[in-house]
């Protein structure tokens, strides 16, 4: 218990030290390829309620559940794995 509190207290202590040195501010750092940035790109309620741009589009190709087994997109380049992934 003492050891635990010591570790946790030290963590907060070093955080305070960093903070005092001005090193604890949020900043965009190196290694940006590990991160993704974005903002909301569209108003979700724009097309859906103030125009009928979808009214003329084609009927769907069909119905039923065949979509479950037949993805046709970029996932063909996701390889490996198994039907029952390892936990």
């Amino acid at each position, binding site marked *: 218990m003492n050891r635990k509190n010591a570790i946790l207290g030290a963590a907060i202590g070093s955080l305070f030290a960093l903070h005092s040195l001005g090193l604890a501010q949020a900043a965009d750092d190196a290694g940006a390829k590990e991160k993704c940035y974005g*903002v*909301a*790109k*569209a*108003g*979700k*309620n*724009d*097309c*859906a*309620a*103030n*125009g*009928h*741009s979808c*009214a*003329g589009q084609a009927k769907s190709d069909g119905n039923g559940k065949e979509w479950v087994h037949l993805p046709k997109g970029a996932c063909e380049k996701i390889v490996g794995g198994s039907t029952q992934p390892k936990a």
Partner: protein
Amino acid sequence: MSLAAGVGLRAPHHEAWRSSRPPVGWLEAHAENYFPQGGAQPAILERLRADYPLSLHGVGLALGSVEPLDLQHVARLRRMIERYQPMLVSEHLCWGRVDGSHLNDLLPLPYTEEALRHVASRVGELQERLGRRVLVENLSTYLRFADSTLEEWEFLAALAARSGCGLLLDVNNVYVSACNHGFDARRFIAALPATAVGEIHLAGHDVESIDGREIRVDTHGSAVCDEVWSLYGFALGHVGPVPTLVEWDTDVPELEVLVAEAARADAVACTARAAVA
């Protein structure tokens, strides 16, 4: 010099709005886009509100639905009104909710006494809950109901009279519906109570061919067409000068294109004023 006409505030232009203040007269935002209370959307609206008069245009209340008003939705709208203090608040003459689910489209009502009674009471309830007058907009429609006993313009005029609401006259929607249903667009506009019209919308539409029949579809995806400009001039002659908005929702062009459309609206309004004088 600033224009009088406004433009619809849309996300593809947020970047442009961050760095410029084009001379449009005012802005209108789709209220529901700003229901979330954090992130980029409310931040930009907060900044723009400081520089332009703002109108909040609701798209999801489905006032004509038989289902009770979605009070959570009304409360969110009210919170937005308190936060942004808009000069105008508007919604549509439509329905869209059934049995707790929402179709998220602006669906047409039959123009009957039953529907009129219903919508007038809903609009009254909404105005009471918001503590202010709202404007109700006419739709573009692609079908009519066999049971309708009123014309759309009679319905709108009666709605304004009974509920005390204002009207948002979408001139493009009048034109689209007039073409689709074969009525006279000018007759529609002339029949509206001039003092009730508190705002005008302008937008572009597309023409589709279905089974060889031409149907005009309200896509908001192109410039305002010449016929709608001319109808706009006619409308101004009837209702006088009211805040006018240019909307563009599909294939949204650069912001300058909208500003140019707003400038054209000003020019039409100028000509209309000269004609009256």
